[in-house]
């Protein structure tokens, strides 16, 4: 582990040794190291193999921006070694190389594949023969990509905390601008959250010894003002004011009223031959490695820069022991900082840039040449031996979050970047991202944003408003742009080897040109075709280079080419972090515990967990016919409709009549939409003159309540709705012995005369006041008993106990479907769809077009009543015992689809296959033979239009 002498501001703690493994080998590190700094100190230069060509890639940005050092940590791919803190015993592995990082067989794609692997090559090359695609796909998937997820994950790898944080102001970016903004606002009483991706706030300034003290002071001020600082945290995107912030194992969902973005700039790479070779580093990256982790990035370096930023890095690196062999400064007249460099005895080549980095496994030399150099070694080319090529291609404002928040950018000719032109209300840009350059300007622009945001929220006083004005004036003074930025050529050194515009996806300058030749000549199209900007760097390293290439190739201005739409996530984030809490909102009946004890087969039914059966659906169905069964129907929607206009209200909502329903009586109803389509069904019981008890389907409960209250909001009738779905448990006791069983638990006269079919009674059952509805739910004598959920198990237990001697069995949803199908009761959503009308569904009797009230759907049903429906819902039986799949088709004489099977079951009591189907109305007559085509099999069935079981309802009324 070779390190520089101890220096102030370094992040490592030399007295604390930590070890971890990289590809199984032990690596020593200090606490405070990143995986990247420790590996680099240990001599590692290749960190990954590239996406497509499997080229060696080494540290480039050392700031978590580029894709070059992505590794797997403890089996989870996607970590960036250069910012991933070391932990004792962590297991780090390389990605995308086989068998090893040093020897990767897929390297052949680079050596041989160049011309054969242009953008979209997999569509072009592997298209024929079609049947071999699965094989190709397998090979391609193994060859490309950024790591592998384990196929089965027994448990979630980590726990993510989701934390909602409301704030007055969110500041993104913890540099001088962000800290100043946060302090200024918090001092006026604003509740401020500051998000910063560094280990500590301070931003880029932390690299500079002189700046460190000032930044520490700003951080202390912010803390003292009450700012909540989230360090090591990344804002992932901007969603209408909601900003998810990922911080280790926590995802903060920050909802602030105002947003300050002080996201800084991103140092840009240059595009030249071999620009991806390990040893080619952003000047700032090399400086981070040296200043923060005391790791010498190289011994002999060549710098290619377009501004003072690179020169300053070179000066700093020289002080730390890197020999600067030569500097290529793109500017013809580089200015005073270049003079400082020259004064150090370093040769500065003005108007020059780098055109090639050479070397086999890592950089061994670099070629510098004058701007616009197109030749091959004759005019002014200079070759240098070096192990490090430092590049600094200008500072791109990190505008992505601002753009997501609605800001507009404009191309600035002078500095060659897209700068913020306007921001929407409530959004503030501060610091370098807003174009500030000097330290003073950066700090003032932060303070101004903080003051403005706080003032808009009604905070502050005369003094603070005065400060706002003073700050504005100071900015005007400080805002003179620092001299000297040159706009680099799109590509230098073409013809000497691959020049990468995009490192994530291995897109070369040639690929971009090719895509334009093929017609993908807008930046958004080229992005989709070449996948440039779509990789893990999210455009940080490739957006501007690709726009420059596009402009050059198409002869357009950069402003005309524009940028691709900024989209979240701005930072790579594990899917697991976005996955949400591992809890599914499940509704359970108050009797659910009993179903579990009975080992019921529990499945989802809408948002409820329900007992489908208790292991023997046919036996359970037979018990209902032979003795008695008990089913939990607590999931039914239950609505109280009360008020003097309750009857009129229902008459307007249902096609049939309810105002004339006598108290204590029950009627079936179907709800239709304004288009005359069936929406839901259920029974309605009149409790008293002013009160109706409406039941709905289980899945329709919420929607029907919404539907009712919607129309009520419009009609303004004197009606009150109360949804008591979850407040009442309900069971259906059915079967020939049901009367005897119920009589054991209540004083109520349950006799056929005293308690008729479609009567409703209120009585105590097992000591609990219940509403008892005598309805034909499953086709046998039956009572549906409704009672408070708090007594769910008590009443269930009492009924099971009372029924024991009669042979009662609990039955589930599946036997219920068999039983109801025997009676041809339709199941809304299963036997009907958004096209079904009551006429087609064989329920014309329920539509009372002569009703005085206009009801919802009447106008449509008046039209439909004039014609025979094209298709009709009918029953069928099959002769061969085959139960057709639900969804099988009914075919016409020519074999073309003409209808649909919606329900089919074997009926144990009838020993017959029964079902429901939509068929052309001319085939709907009793006894017609239809042909069913089901997964390759064809068989015939007979139409039946009356219920399969007890067609005259004698059993039901008994």
């Amino acid at each position: 582990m070779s390190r520089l002498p101890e220096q102030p501001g370094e992040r490592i703690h030399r007295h604390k040794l930590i070890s971890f493994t990289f590809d199984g080998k032990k690596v020593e590190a200090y606490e405070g190291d990143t995986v990247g700094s420790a590996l680099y100190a240990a001599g590692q230069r290749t960190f990954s193999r590239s996406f497509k060509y499997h080229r060696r890639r080494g540290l480039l940005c050392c700031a978590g921006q580029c894709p070059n050092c992505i590794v797997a940590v403890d089996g989870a791919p996607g970590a960036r070694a250069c910012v991933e803190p070391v932990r004792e015993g962590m297991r780090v592995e390389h990605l995308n190389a086989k068998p090893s990082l040093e020897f990767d067989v897929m390297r052949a794609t680079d050596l041989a594949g160049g011309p054969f692997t242009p953008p979209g090559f997999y569509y072009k090359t592997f298209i024929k023969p079609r049947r071999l695609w699965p094989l190709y796909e397998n090979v391609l998937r193994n060859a490309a990509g950024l790591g592998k997820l384990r196929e089965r994950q027994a448990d979630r790898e980590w726990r993510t905390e989701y934390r909602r944080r409301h704030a007055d102001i969110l500041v993104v970016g913890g540099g001088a601008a962000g800290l100043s903004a946060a302090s200024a606002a918090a001092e006026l009483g604003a509740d401020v959250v500051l998000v910063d991706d560094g280990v500590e706030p301070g931003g880029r300034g932390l690299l500079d010894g002189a700046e460190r003290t000032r930044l520490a002071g700003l951080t202390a001020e912010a803390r003292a003002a009450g700012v909540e600082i989230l360090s090591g945290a990344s804002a992932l995107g901007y969603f209408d004011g909601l900003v998810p912030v990922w911080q280790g194992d926590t995802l903060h969902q920050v909802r602030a009223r105002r947003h300050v973005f002080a996201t800084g700039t991103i140092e840009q790479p240059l595009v030249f031959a071999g620009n991806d070779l390990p040893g080619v580093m952003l000047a700032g990256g090399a400086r981070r490695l040296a200043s923060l982790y005391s790791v010498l990035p190289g011994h002999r370096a060549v710098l290619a820069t377009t501004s003072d930023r690179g020169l300053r890095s070179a000066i700093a690196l020289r002080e730390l022991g890197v020999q600067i062999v030569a500097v290529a400064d793109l500017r013809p007249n580089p200015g005073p900082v270049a003079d400082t460099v020259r004064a150090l005895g370093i040769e500065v080549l003005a108007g020059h840039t780098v055109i090639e980095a050479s070397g086999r496994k890592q950089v061994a030399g670099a070629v510098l040449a004058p701007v616009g150099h197109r030749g091959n070694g004759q005019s002014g080319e200079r070759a240098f031996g070096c192990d490090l090529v430092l590049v600094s291609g200008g500072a791109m404002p990190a505008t992505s979050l601002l753009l997501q928040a609605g800001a507009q950018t404009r191309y600035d000719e002078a500095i060659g970047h897209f700068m913020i032109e306007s921001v929407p209300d409530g959004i503030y840009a501060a610091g370098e991202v807003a174009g500030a350059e000097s330290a003073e300007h950066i700090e003032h622009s932060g303070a101004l944003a903080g003051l403005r945001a706080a003032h808009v929220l009604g905070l502050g006083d005369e003094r603070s408003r005065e400060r706002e004005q003073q700050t504005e004036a100071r900015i005007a003074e400080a805002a003179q742009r620092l001299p000297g930025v040159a706009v680099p050529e799109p590509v230098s050194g073409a013809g000497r080897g691959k020049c990468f515009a995009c490192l994530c996806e291995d897109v070369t300058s040639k690929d971009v040109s090719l895509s334009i030749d093929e017609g993908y000549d807008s930046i958004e199209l080229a992005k989709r075709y070449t996948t440039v900007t779509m990789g893990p760097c999210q455009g940080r390293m490739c957006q501007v280079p690709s726009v420059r290439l596009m402009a050059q190739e198409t002869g357009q201005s950069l402003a005309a080419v524009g940028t691709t739409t900024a989209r979240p996530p701005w930072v790579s984030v594990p899917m697991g972090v976005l996955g949400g809490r591992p809890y599914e909102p499940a509704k359970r009946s108050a009797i659910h515990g009993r179903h579990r004890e009975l080992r019921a087969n529990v499945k989802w039914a809408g948002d409820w967990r329900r007992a489908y059966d208790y292991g023997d659906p046919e036996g359970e169905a037979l018990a209902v016919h032979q003795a008695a069964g008990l089913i939990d129907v607590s999931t039914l929607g239950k609505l109280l409709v009360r008020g003097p206009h309750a009857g009129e209200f229902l008459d307007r909502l249902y096609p049939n009549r309810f105002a004339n329903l006598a108290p204590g009586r029950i009627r079936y109803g179907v709800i239709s939409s304004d288009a005359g389509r069936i929406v839901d069904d259920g029974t309605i019981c009149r409790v008293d003159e002013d009160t109706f008890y409406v039941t709905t389907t289980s899945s329709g409960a919420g929607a029907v309540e919404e539907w009712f209250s919607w129309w009520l909001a419009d009609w303004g009738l004197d009606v009150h709705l109360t949804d008591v779905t979850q407040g009442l448990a309900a069971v259906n006791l059915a079967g020939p012995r049901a009367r005897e069983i119920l009589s054991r638990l209540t004083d109520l006269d349950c006799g056929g005369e005293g308690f008729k079919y479609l009567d409703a009674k209120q009585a105590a059952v097992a000591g609990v006041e219940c509403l008892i509805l005598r309805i034909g739910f499953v086709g046998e004598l039956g009572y549906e008993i409704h009672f408070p959920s708090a007594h769910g198990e008590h009443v269930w237990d009492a009924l099971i106990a009372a029924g024991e001697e009669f042979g009662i069995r609990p039955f589930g949803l599946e036997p219920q479907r068999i039983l109801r199908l025997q009676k041809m009761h339709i199941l809304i959503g299963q036997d009907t769809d958004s096209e079904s009308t009551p006429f087609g569904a064989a329920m014309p009797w329920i539509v009372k077009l002569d009703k005085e009230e206009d009801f919802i759907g009447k106008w449509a049903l008046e039209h439909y009543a004039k014609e025979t429906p094209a298709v009709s819902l009918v029953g069928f039986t099959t002769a061969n015992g085959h139960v057709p799949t639900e969804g099988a088709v009914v075919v016409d004489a020519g074999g073309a689809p003409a209808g649909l099977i919606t329900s089919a079951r074997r009926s144990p009591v009838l020993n017959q296959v029964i079902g429901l189907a939509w068929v052309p109305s001319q085939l709907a007559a009793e006894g017609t033979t239809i042909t069913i085509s089901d997964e390759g099999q064809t068989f015939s069935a007979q139409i039946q239009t009356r219920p399969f079981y007890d067609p005259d309802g004698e059993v039901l009324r008994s």
Partner: protein
Amino acid sequence: MSLDFLTTAPVADGAGPANQSDPVARSPMERCAQAVGARFEVRSGWNVAAGYTSREHEMDLSTTAVGWADVSHLGKLELQASPEAMRTIVADAAGGASPELGRATRAGYVWWLPLTPSRTLVVCEAADAPGLKRRLTEAASDSPGHASVADVTSVFAALTLVGPLAREVFARFCAIDLRPAVTPVGGLRPGSIARQPGLIVREEENRFLFLFGWAVGEYMWAVVADAARHLGGGPIGLDALSSHPQPSAEPSRA
């Protein structure tokens, strides 16, 4: 017929476990509480979790971190009337109080929770529910226009979260802004909580009443327990809950 089938059966109190044949009312979270060692007692007809470990430990938990208590037994009544009639009825029954949207009004140990101008939820001690229902029904029958009083006790399950981290627990699964400046004591906040309709009443600085659907009881217990445990919290019984400062009969209005 009446709407008595909405109301739980009366059962005599007893210190021990419930008699098998009595129709004791049970919370949808009873099994969850049982699984973590709750000690049950029948109070006002309900099988309630009186305690878990010890009152001292539960007090400690809920004064330093957060405790949650199942209070599903609380009586809940829903009152609906025209906005004008609503004001009259509530003023009558709540001793002159005039509830406003977004605020819970405490009067005579009863929470008046106006959800809309024409719909108010009333939450009271289980023992007080029958009397309050009678009073409200009388007041409703005297009012002009139709007014509806419905017992919705078992429509809503309920938890009380108490402790300095109670707000942080909600922040784990709820987007409602519960900062004291936005939701002061007495604040009433209906909304999506853990992806389900619910409502929160800030009873005290660090004490929240949380109502949600009866059928999602098990789910909500799991969600709250997961979030609260991670913050060092745990379940507390009614005995420990009653040792905490109670919402006063008439909190001062903010």
